[in-house]
């Protein structure tokens, strides 16, 4: 361990092909021995379902835990626009090296280049895998795979299934998983909430889960544990995440010693349906792919009250096209979000409270007809109409940025293993590959690369090198984890307050969006930290969790989640405060150029921040320096 960090195990030698070389050197295990080894997978999204199906296919005994009633409900199902892959078949000049470059540059040079390179190399195989499973990707008339373009890229490399790409990819992985269930190789346990990690001699060996219907606490042990539990942007209360998405499994692992990397890097997605009522429970994303055909604009004048169709062309400001002539409406998410917020703050926003901008498909509908647009984005248009009550074919949509994807997560090495030996972290739950800002259509790519292709090799290598005995469920480490979980639950159940959990969660979200949202500054972050601490104290004294620990209790589930969010929120604020630069989704107002663009500090911050939990004091910040050999950091410009 150097710099307080384990070895990131980045392969030596040339970047291209490093993954193939690594894989060839990794030890293997005979299929017969695999049948005696059990693997625990938590989560059934793209990463979890693909990893579980593949590990079972290899011969391991796999147990899968999901808090849903069915693996098919995992939040990957909601991803809309597409999945990137460099297939170099079109004539627009795409290649593995261009996808690598776009990913590293898009992440503002805060990701490991070896990881980005591997992702670009694997990407094409993911598409083949999914096609073989029967994923109905969009096709050209002749039958070949169709693509479209996405923000942050100048080539068309995004494969898609209308606006339901995540759904179709997830169903592919889910079906592969259910096939393994039928073959008896996977034990699928649904409605389990993982609340604690079990370590034996410092090695991850199991979890404590609560059965969401009986309330019973269960111990599950295995040779290795894979956390594939998604992101944590529900810390903001209003986000694009499904309501049950949480941080509990990775937060408990963090408390057990797993380092948490770059927690402050939260992507604010520019195209969400804006919020209205205080009881609104979530924000709905409109795929970024709409920006292919949609033009973003605001009235030039402040306080504009006319309907959009009454505002003449010369009084409209197509501000992304004006400010970024090369990328225009396709500028990356962080840039588009910040510009929208600035203009709304300057009084030019439209809609209730002036908190939205127009996303206008009128020109595209005029040029290609309503049917062509409906074929491309049909379900998105319907979704918008349902939620807003307005017809997007007749009136420009109103959109506003909202917390979406969390680039931060548990620190992992090149093998996707956390700083706790034997604990692997996949997909959005880890911090890797997207740097400070994720490019559109890259999340699905990473989740499936991790699950189908990377973890099956590296998990095998770990198990080959670390023969271990089974851990009995009454091992002292299991009993201790069970007991501490029971204590946390009984504290919440016995709390004598009067205020429902959601009320605290809403307040936490409002602090986080104000202090640690689209832009941040030191004073605000310090104030935010004090506000969150005070709110957590109030939560403990005043929350009401009705009902019992046994039986279904949705309020208890929420209370456990929100309690973990308080800890995470503080870590996010600290991380944002410590990173004295602007990069990607992390925009520190103190660090900007004269024309308002983010100013990175590569001398002091070209590193991954990895936080260590400290039971007796403030968390400790470690840093993993980033090396750039194939592509030198440059100023990110989309002008």
């Amino acid at each position, binding site marked *: 361990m150097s710099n307080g960090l384990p070895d990131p195990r980045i392969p030596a030698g040339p970047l291209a092909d490093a993954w193939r070389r690594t894989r060839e050197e990794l030890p293997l295990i005979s299929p017969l021995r695999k049948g005696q080894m059990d693997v625990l997978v938590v989560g059934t999204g793209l990463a979890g379902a*693909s990893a579980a199906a*593949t590990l079972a*296919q290899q011969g391991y005994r796999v147990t899968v835990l999901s808090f*849903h*009633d*069915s693996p*098919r*409900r995992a*939040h990957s*199902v*909601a991803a809309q626009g597409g999945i990137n892959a460099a297939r170099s078949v079109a004539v627009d000049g795409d290649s593995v090296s261009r996808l690598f470059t776009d990913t590293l540059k898009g992440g503002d040079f805060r990701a490991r280049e070896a990881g980005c390179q591997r992702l670009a190399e694997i990407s094409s*195989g993911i*598409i083949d*895998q*999914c*096609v*073989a*499973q*029967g994923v*109905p990707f*969009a*096709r*050209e*008339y002749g*039958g070949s795979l*169709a693509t479209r373009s996405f923000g942050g890229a100048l080539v068309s490399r995004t494969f898609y*299934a*209308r606006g*339901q790409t995540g759904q*179709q990819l997830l169903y592919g992985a889910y079906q*592969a998983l*259910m*096939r393994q*269930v*039928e073959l008896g190789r996977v034990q699928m346990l*649904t409605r389990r909430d993982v609340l604690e990690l079990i370590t034996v001699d410092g090695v991850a060996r199991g979890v404590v889960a609560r059965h969401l219907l009986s309330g019973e606490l269960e111990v599950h042990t295995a040779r290795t544990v894979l956390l594939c539990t998604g992101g944590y942007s529900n810390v903001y209360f209003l986000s694009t995440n*499904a*309501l*049950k998405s949480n941080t509990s499994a990775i937060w408990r692992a963090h408390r057990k010693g797993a380092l948490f990397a770059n927690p402050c890097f939260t992507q604010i997605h520019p195209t969400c349906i804006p919020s*209205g*009522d205080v*009881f609104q*429970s*979530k924000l*709905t*994303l409109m795929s970024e792919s709409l920006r292919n055909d949609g033009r973003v604009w605001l009235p030039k004048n402040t306080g504009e009250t006319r309907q959009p169709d009454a505002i003449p062309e010369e009084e409209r400001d197509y501000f992304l096209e004006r400010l970024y002539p090369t990328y225009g409406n396709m500028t990356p998410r962080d840039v588009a979000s910040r510009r929208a917020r600035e203009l709304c703050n300057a009084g030019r926003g439209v809609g209730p409270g002036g908190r939205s901008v127009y996303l206008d498909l009128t020109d595209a509908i005029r040029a290609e007809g309503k049917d062509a647009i409906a074929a491309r984005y049909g379900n998105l248009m319907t979704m918008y109409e*349902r*939620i807003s*009550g307005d017809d997007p074919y007749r009136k420009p949509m109103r959109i506003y940025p909202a917390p979406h994807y969390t680039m931060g997560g548990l620190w992992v090495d090149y093998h996707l293993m956390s700083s706790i030996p034997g604990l692997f972290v996949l997909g959005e739950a880890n911090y890797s590959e997207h740097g400070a800002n994720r490019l559109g259509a890259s999340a699905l790519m990473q989740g499936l690369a991790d699950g*189908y*292709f990377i973890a*099956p090799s590296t998990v095998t290598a770990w198990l080959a090198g670390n023969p271990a005995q089974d851990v009995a469920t009454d091992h002292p480490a299991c009993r201790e984890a069970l007991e501490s979980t029971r204590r946390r639950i009984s504290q919440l159940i016995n709390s004598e307050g009067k205020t*429902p959990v*959601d*009320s605290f969660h809403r307040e936490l979200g409002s602090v986080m969006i104000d202090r640690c949202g689209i832009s941040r500054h030191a004073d605000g972050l310090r104030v935010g930290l004090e506000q969150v601490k005070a709110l957590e104290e109030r939560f403990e004294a005043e929350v*009401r969790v*009705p009902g019992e620990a046994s*039986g*279904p209790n949705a*309020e208890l589930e929420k209370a456990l989640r929100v309690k973990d969010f308080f800890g995470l929120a503080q870590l996010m604020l600290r991380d944002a405060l410590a990173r004295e630069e602007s990069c990607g989704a992390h925009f520190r107002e103190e660090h900007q150029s004269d024309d308002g663009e983010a100013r990175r500090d590569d001398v002091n911050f070209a590193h991954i921040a990895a936080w260590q939990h400290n039971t007796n004091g403030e968390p400790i910040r470690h840093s993993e320096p980033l090396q750039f050999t194939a592509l030198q950091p440059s100023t990110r410009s989309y002008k």
Partner: protein
Amino acid sequence: MKLTLRIWRQSSADQPGSYQSHQLENVSPDLSLLEALDQLNEQLISSGERPVSFEHDCREGICGSCGFLVNGQAHGPRAATSVCQLYLREFNDGAVLTLDPWRAKAFPPIQDLMVDRSAFDRLIAAGGYCSTGTGQAPDGNALPVGREQATSAFSTATCIGCGACVASCRNASASLFVAAKLAHLGQLPQGQPERARRADTMQRQMEAEGFGSCSSNLECEAVCPQEISADWISWMHRESRS
């Protein structure tokens, strides 16, 4: 606006259930029905009563978690909409809404508006997949699929597994769910090798789970949030004969 919610309350499968009425004052018409239930639950918690249990997660119509009957109609009065996308502006001020859980033998009750739909997972496990292992895939472009064929397969692959089709069928049949999966994979070249076997095993599993046979009243199609056509049920029957 003002609403009366008449909700089926049942603490567990072995306890009898009954309707309970709750008033909501001053709710915004821009809220979804689920958000109105959230608001009601906050009131219930503050007054020391057990909140209403209902399934939900993504709240944007895609995860398939939510679903109950609103005034006897699965997912409520609006076509092509799951209940999380049903907004109060659809109703008149002062409306009375009766909310019931899905009722089907193969979907045992859990609590209030929640039922157990794990039978759907067992249907998929019975053959709703292509038997391909990771790493064995040929080039995706080596297997051309015409645009219309891909689009048609996609239109059946979009089933979100909510169970509305079962809940609105007088025989509580899962025919639309099974037909949609058979049609999704059966229309693609990748699904051909197992096509006949899949049709057989999935339909047998449907019977084993206690789903009824197709009642031909087409309610499944009428309530499907993804607008999957009941014509695929006829297609499924042809699959079985071939």
